[in-house]
């Protein structure tokens, strides 16, 4: 059966917050879960919106990689280049920002243009 990984209300709330941040003149990027393997906690399509001053709403994991995503998101806001990130147990960064659950995921981060 078809499914989406977050409720539609959650998705709408994240978009609306990103729009409000843009209107307030902040730099904004949106991170999206593109694919998952194994027991990744948030499904495909889950999103996190973040600002250049480090605020964020939404989630792309159970809290394991949000810190890294927000840090990388700052780079995306600064240079405007979209990035596709891999996280997971086989990643070199596993000890720092790996997923304790043993899952893997790909996250796409892009800037919301002014």
């Amino acid at each position, binding site marked *: 059966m078809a499914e989406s*990984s977050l409720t539609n209300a959650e998705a709408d709330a994240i978009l609306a917050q990103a729009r409000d941040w843009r209107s307030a003149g902040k730099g904004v990027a949106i991170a999206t879960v*593109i694919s998952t393997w194994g027991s990744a906690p948030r499904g495909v399509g889950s999103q996190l919106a973040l600002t250049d001053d480090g605020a964020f709403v939404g989630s792309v994991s159970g809290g394991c990689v949000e810190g890294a995503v927000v840090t990388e998101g700052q780079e995306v806001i600064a240079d405007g280049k979209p990035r596709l990130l891999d996280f997971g147990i086989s990643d070199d960064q596993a000890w720092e920002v790996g997923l304790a659950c043993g899952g893997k995921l790909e996250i796409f981060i892009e800037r919301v243009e002014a």
Partner: protein
Amino acid sequence: MQSSLFEKAVALRADNQPVVRIVEMLSGADWLLTPAGIEGSGSLPPEVAEAASEAQRHDRSHDIKHGAQRYFLHVYNPPRRLIIVGAVHITQPLVQIAAAAGYAITVIDPRGAFATAERFPGVDLNEDWPDEAMEALKPDNRTAVVTLTHDPKLDDPALEVALRSEAFYIGCLGSRKTHASRVERLTAAGLTAEEIGKIHAPIGLHLGGRAPAEIAIAIMAQITQVLHLGDGREVKAKAAA
């Protein structure tokens, strides 16, 4: 993410319209599939546009490769709907639990004393006769229907419409005995065994609770299960395998 497309997507969602956002992940180029068609600059391969329509129908975001390009199709659909017939005691906790799970809820009850704003603050209340109300609401494959009145005069007309719709879940409150007489009435009304077989009754997963909130949890649990795993027969087959 182009500013104009982003604003458009937010506005369409604020208006409860479906949108699919399409982004090519190397360049960041993006498009929207809106009710008016594809919008965005640059050419989008027709295969990718078709996949976006398909993703919208199946309510499922996913990535897709096309040549050297890799696209993400992000489906933003309106909330799933829950239509409840009967503004009864169980309806009160069910409305709260379903709202937390992201459903847009309508409660149908033509008995004015039941469907009041005091008992259901902020809920969409419909006081039309259940068959007319159900016809107007047009349950689709993203809609669950629950009847809770116990009263054949109210439940049956709503069911006759719902059972011929694409509703992904239909559940009816009442014991096995009540359900047996319901099946007889619906058969006499001309519904097929296949249509009647769509009903989940007695309603809800068997959690053992008797309090209204506990029954509401059992109902919402069953709706969730059917949404993600298919109906009870498939679930049982999987468990047995």
